[in-house]
C-alpha cells in the first residue's frame, strides 16, 4: 500500500515537471505578429507548453525581462546601455537573439518616372518640406503621402529610421494595414508610401534609397538604410523550453512564418 502511494507521489512529481510549462513573452508591437504566429504553431506541436504573448512595446518587454516578469522580451531595437546596467544590478543578463530583420521599402505608383530618392528627400517628403514631384525632377504632380497609422510597428520603425523622430506631415493618408497601403498607392498616381519589404508586389514601384535598391541581400549586408534587426531577449543563453521555442523561431519553420508576416528571414 505504502509502496503504491509512494509511486503515485513520484509519478505526480515527474508529470508535474513537464505539464503546464509556460513561457511569457512581452514587448514590441512590431515583433508581435511573429511572436503570435510562431507561438501558435509551436504550441500546436507542444501541447504541454503554454506561451503567453503580450505587446506593450520594446521598452515594456525589456523592463519585464529585467523585473523577471517575462521570459522573453520582444524588441525592435537593441537594448540600451542603461537597461543593460539596470539588468546587471538585478542579476539579469540580457542575451540578444536575432530572429528576423525589419526592412522597409519606399514605393510609388508604377507611373512615377523616378527610380530612387535620397534619404534626405524621403525625410523632406514625409515631414512636409517637399510637396510636389517636380521638386525632385518628376512631373508637376502633388505628392500624395501615404503612411501606416501610428499603431503599427512599421510606422514606428519608419519614424525612427527615416524621419529620425520627426513627425509625419499632418495631411498624410494614414492606412491601417500594409495591404491597404499597397492598394492605395497602386491606385493613386502621385502617391508614395512605405511598406514592409515582404509586401512589395508588381503593382508598386520600388525606389532605391541613396542608390541602394532594397532587397533581402542589401538588407542582410547592412547596405540598405531602412532596416533593423528584431530581437527576442532572454535572461542569459536560452535553456529548456525557452531554447526550444527560440530554436523553433530561428529554424526553417519559424523563419518561414517570419517571411509570411512580412519580415526578412535569416535563412
Amino acid at each position, binding site marked *: 500500500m505504502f509502496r503504491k502511494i509512494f509511486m503515485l507521489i513520484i509519478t505526480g512529481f515527474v508529470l508535474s515537471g513537464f505539464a503546464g510549462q509556460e513561457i511569457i513573452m512581452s514587448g514590441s508591437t512590431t515583433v508581435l505578429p511573429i511572436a503570435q504566429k510562431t507561438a501558435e504553431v509551436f504550441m500546436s506541436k507542444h501541447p504541454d507548453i503554454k506561451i503567453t504573448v503580450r505587446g506593450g512595446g520594446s521598452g515594456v518587454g525589456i523592463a519585464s525581462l529585467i523585473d523577471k516578469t517575462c521570459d522573453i522580451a520582444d524588441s525592435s531595437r*537593441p*537594448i540600451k*546601455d542603461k537597461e*543593460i*546596467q539596470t539588468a*546587471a*544590478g538585478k542579476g539579469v543578463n*540580457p*542575451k*540578444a*537573439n*536575432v530572429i528576423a*530583420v525589419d526592412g522597409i521599402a519606399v514605393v510609388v505608383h508604377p507611373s512615377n518616372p523616378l527610380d530612387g530618392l535620397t534619404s534626405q528627400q524621403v525625410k523632406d517628403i514625409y515631414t512636409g518640406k517637399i510637396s510636389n514631384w517636380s521638386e525632385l525632377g518628376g512631373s508637376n504632380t502633388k505628392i500624395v503621402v501615404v503612411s501606416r497609422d501610428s499603431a503599427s510597428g512599421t510606422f514606428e520603425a519608419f519614424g525612427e529610421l527615416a524621419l529620425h523622430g520627426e513627425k509625419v506631415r499632418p495631411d498624410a493618408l494614414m492606412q491601417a494595414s500594409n495591404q491597404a497601403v499597397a492598394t492605395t498607392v497602386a491606385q493613386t498616381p502621385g502617391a508614395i508610401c512605405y511598406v514592409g519589404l515582404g509586401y512589395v508586389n508588381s503593382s508598386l514601384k520600388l525606389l532605391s534609397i541613396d542608390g541602394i535598391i532594397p532587397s*533581402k*541581400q542589401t538588407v*542582410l*549586408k*547592412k547596405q540598405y538604410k531602412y532596416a533593423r*534587426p528584431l*530581437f527576442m531577449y532572454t535572461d542569459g543563453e536560452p535553456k529548456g523550453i525557452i531554447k526550444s521555442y527560440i530554436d523553433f523561431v*530561428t529554424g526553417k519553420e519559424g*523563419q518561414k512564418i517570419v517571411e509570411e508576416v512580412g519580415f*526578412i*528571414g*535569416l*535563412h
Partner: protein
Amino acid sequence: MRWLKVVLMMLLMVNLSFASEVERLVEKLVEKGIITEGEAYKILTEAEEEAKKQEAVARKDTDKISGWIKNTKFKGDARLRYEYIGRENQDGSYIADRERWRIRFRWGFDTKVNDQIEAGFRIATGDSQDPTSANQTLTQAFNDKYIWLDKAYITYKPVPTLSITGGKMTNPFYTNLIWSSDLNPEGVSFVKNFPVDEGKGNFYLLGGYFPILERSNDIEDPYMTGFQIGYAGKIQEKKFKAAIAYYDYYGLKDSKASEISPSCYNKGNTLYGAGTNARYKYDYDILDLSVEFTPFEFNYRDTMLPLTFYGDYGKNIAAGVKENIGYLYGFQLGSAKKQKSWQFNYDYRRLEADAVVEFMPDDSFAQGGTDCKGHTLGFRYATSDNSTLGITYMITEGLGNTKKVDADILQIDYSVSF
C-alpha cells in the same frame, strides 16, 4: 555554428576595433557557402550586441566610481621648512638659540553629497594637538609621526546664498592678525551672502557657536560665539575686502589655561596661579576690524604685480583688561602662484598680552601667542605652478607682560600644493 559565434564574440569583446576584420571573415564564410547571409547577419549582430553589453556592464562599475570622484575634490599640500630661532631673554640671561627641520603635510577632500549637502575631511601632521600649527619637527631618531584629524564637517546649503556648517571646519572668519591660518574651529556656523554689482561683490553676514571645552562634571562649559559682517569685491575696479567681527568668549575667565588648551597655554595671556594650575585672569570679548585693498598693479617684464595693503585692528573690550590692543599693517607686492612669479611682503604687528586668547594667533611670530610685537619680511618665488620656495624673517620682541623672549626667526620653506 555556435563555436563560430563564440570566437567572433570573443574577438569583438577584446576590442571593438576588430569589428571590420570580423565582418570580412564572416563575408568570406558566406562567399564559400559555409554560412548563409542571414546566418552571417545574425552572428554579427548578436556578437556586436554581446560586446556592447560587456562594455556597458564594465562602464557601470566605472561610472559608479567616477560619479563619486566627479563630486569629490581632493586637496593637499606639503611643506619642508628649515627654521632658525635666535633668542634672547629680556632680562639678559642666557637662552640657547634653536635650529630645527620641520614638515607639514595636509590632505583631504570635499565631496558633494547632493545639491544641498557637502562634506569635508582633512588630516594633517603636527607636533602636538596645538590648534595653531600642523608643523612636525623632525626629531627622535626617525620615529613615526602623528597624523591628526584637522577638519571634518558637513555643510548644508538650503539656498545658494546660505550655508550652514557643522563640525571641525575651515575658519569662516576673515582676519589678518588674530587667527592663525592653521586653526580650524569646531562648532556650528552660518554664512549668508548678499551678492551685489552683478556678482562682482558680496556682502556677507557670518555667525557661529563654538564649544571651547566640555567638562564631564559641569554644564557651564566655556564656548565662543562670533559674528562678522563683511564685504569682498571691488571698489572702482580695485580689489577690496573689509570685515568687522565680534568674538565673545564665555567661561574663560578663571578657567585653567592648561585645561582649555593643553598644548597652547602660557603663551602671553595674563594668568594667575602657577604651572598647570594657572588660570585666565580676564574675559575675552574681542572686536576686530580687518581690511585689505589692492589699489595698484604694476607691469614688470610682462608680469602684473599687484600691490596690496592690509591691516587689522583688534581690541578686547572685556572689563578691566589693560593690555588689550592688537594691530597689524603691511603690504604685499606680487603674487607667487604661476611659475616664475614672486611676491614680497612686509608687515608690522603688535599684539598685547590680552588682546586675544593665546591659542588664536599665528604660532610662528614670536613663537606663538600674544604679548609681542615686531616685523615680518617675506619673499616667495614660484619654482613651478603649485610649488614655491620662500624665505621669511621675523624680528620679534616680547612686550614684557609675561616672560616672553625676544626672537629673530628665519624660515626657509619649500611648499607644494596638489
